[in-house]
């Protein structure tokens, strides 16, 4: 049973459809990321869920009740903003207590719950500080405590880490997941950082031009992208073209990549040209091998644990990331001819 449900949600700004008939179901306690490039409608969708924007069509249902006609202050959602949005004229304590005071909670209980919330985000002892006396990471923690202390139905995170520096960002994202799992709150996390989304999400909704392209677990998004956009957007890919030499029954074809022939799943007819995507880490290179795609090593870049090889194939470049424990980079010279080999199952065929 889904807890948060978007049905045909639409939003139009000046005749441009920003969100197009979006459908999504989120289970209770699940952490779902909205991932996509800027302008894909992810923040707009979040703002519609929070109630800051009206929906132009469709409905939003939380826990069986439609909420899309309620004003934001009646929706019982907790939001963490990109720029923290703490009240600058209130102490940390008053910031966190704000939502509880509005709910007319008893004074002792407010006290207790605020202190608990601050302890949860490891900010005990900061109650009397003002936001401007805190670092960015600390401010974001206060913001998280403020959103969670009111025990909202859904936690909405709008690019909460993008204003922090790289190291802090990683720490904070782990902390957020830890707290989210502990509290067990249904969460939507908006981000444009795919690494972030892959690391923390139960499921990712990849968005592009106002549409959800694919909703899946991080592993499935990475390994079985369903659309062109998802394959290109998530991780790095090589695009290579092959032509069908022979097609068999059951969607099996023999495809030739410049002479390197493989039998794989694809629905093409004889002599069709088919595009495939291939992740850089799925390519192996050998100096001597019976079969493979003959390429020239254009350049190699040492990246610590792995080495990136830029491979030239006629007018096309492939990149291959190979672990240094598998292949010693000193064995391969720039300008050398090698054979690139991959498992046919790793090729992601695209829909044409």
């Amino acid at each position, binding site marked *: 049973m889904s807890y948060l449900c978007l049905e045909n949600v639409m939003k139009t700004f000046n005749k441009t459809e920003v969100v197009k008939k979006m459908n999504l179901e989120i289970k209770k306690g699940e952490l779902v990321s909205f991932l996509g490039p800027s302008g894909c409608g992810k923040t707009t969708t979040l703002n519609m869920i*929070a*109630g*800051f924007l009206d929906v132009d069509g469709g409905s939003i249902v939380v826990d069986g009740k439609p909420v899309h006609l309620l*004003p*934001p*202050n*009646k*929706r*019982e*959602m*907790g*939001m963490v*903003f*990109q*720029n923290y*949005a*703490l*009240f*600058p*004229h*209130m*102490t940390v304590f008053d910031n966190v207590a*704000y*939502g509880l005071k*509005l*709910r007319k909670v008893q004074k002792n209980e407010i006290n207790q719950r605020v202190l608990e919330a601050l302890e949860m985000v490891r900010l005990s002892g900061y109650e009397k500080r*003002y*936001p*401007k006396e805190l670092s960015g990471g600390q401010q974001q923690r206060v*913001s998280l405590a*403020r*959103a969670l202390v*009111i025990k909202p139905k859904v936690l909405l995170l709008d690019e909460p880490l993008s204003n922090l520096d790289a190291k802090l960002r990683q720490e904070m994202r782990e902390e957020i997941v830890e707290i989210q799992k502990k509290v067990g709150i249904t969460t939507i996390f908006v981000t444009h950082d795919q690494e972030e989304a892959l690391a923390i999400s139960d499921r990712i909704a990849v968005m592009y031009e106002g549409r959800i392209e694919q909703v899946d677990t991080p592993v499935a998004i990475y390994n079985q992208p369903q659309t062109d956009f998802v394959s290109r957007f998530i991780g790095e890919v090589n695009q290579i073209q092959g032509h069908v030499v022979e097609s068999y029954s059951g969607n099996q074809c023999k495809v030739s990549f410049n002479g390197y022939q493989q039998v794989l799943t694809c629905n093409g007819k004889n002599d069709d040209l088919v595009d495939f995507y291939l992740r850089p880490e799925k390519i192996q290179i050998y100096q001597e091998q019976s079969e493979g795609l003959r390429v020239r090593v254009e350049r190699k870049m040492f990246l610590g644990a792995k080495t990136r090889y830029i491979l030239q194939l006629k007018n096309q470049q492939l990149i291959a990331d190979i672990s240094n424990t598998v292949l010693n980079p000193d064995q391969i010279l720039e300008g050398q001819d090698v054979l690139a080999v991959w498992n046919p199952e790793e090729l992601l065929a695209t829909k044409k």
Partner: protein
Amino acid sequence: MQAELEMNQEQEIQFKQMKKKKSKKRLDSWLLLLPALSIFIFFFLLPLVFLFITSFKTFDAATGIGHDWTLQNYAKFITDQFYLGVLWRTVKIALITTLAAVIISYPVAYQITKIRGRMKNYLTLLVLSPLLISMVIRCYGWVILLSNNGVVNNALMKMGLIDKPLTLLYTEFSVVVGMVHVLFPYMVLSIMGSLERIDPSVIRASQNLGAGPIRTFFSVVLPLTLPGIFAGSVMVFSLAVSSFVTPAILGGPQVKVMSFLTYEQVSTILNWPFGSAIGFLLIFIATITIIIYSKLLTRSEKGVAIQ
């Protein structure tokens, strides 16, 4: 040994050069301030000092300013009920004007900041338009409206609401009306400034936590605009407390204020020392009022620095 000495010398030279650079930089910034600073010093600060000295001199019927030192001018003011009454009235009018300006300006500023695009510029220009008209002309406009057979009284009598004209002109009321009209653009502009500085997501955060529009306004928006209200109030109050033309035209001799009193002493009675003393008392009282006001505001909101 020799090398070390050379090094030291070299360092010293470097150090001196650095110092030179630093002082040059300082000089540059002073140079930029020079035009404004010289005007301020020669045409404001120095005359003020002379005025201050004059206020401690005796009055000489023949030359105006006598040679002996005295505290008589201040004593005369402080002990006289009439003068104290004028001082109280001046401060009262300025305070009421400031308060009225805040109440009138806030909604205007609030609406203007909500509007986007060209309309916003037009509205801002409209608000500023009272400043484009000469103060004297504007005051006589109010005279036409408020006098005994003026527009307001005629209309009220025609409607049968009153039998005989109300005394609107030459009262503290008419002075306040005229001053609010002149001074409220300053208030609108400074409140607009602080409203525009509020991060919109802070307002969203408040709504998200369960506050309706009214609660959000009083808990978040209003406290965050106190700096703007303060800046506007200081401007409006100091302009109102020292204004001369508006009280002179709309208040006349019935509503005497401090600046009118000073004018009387200096140009009619030619008692310059006493005039100076009145002027200084006005500056003193106005400064104290502003300090108390700012203390009250800063105490209520510690998180937001009052600029």
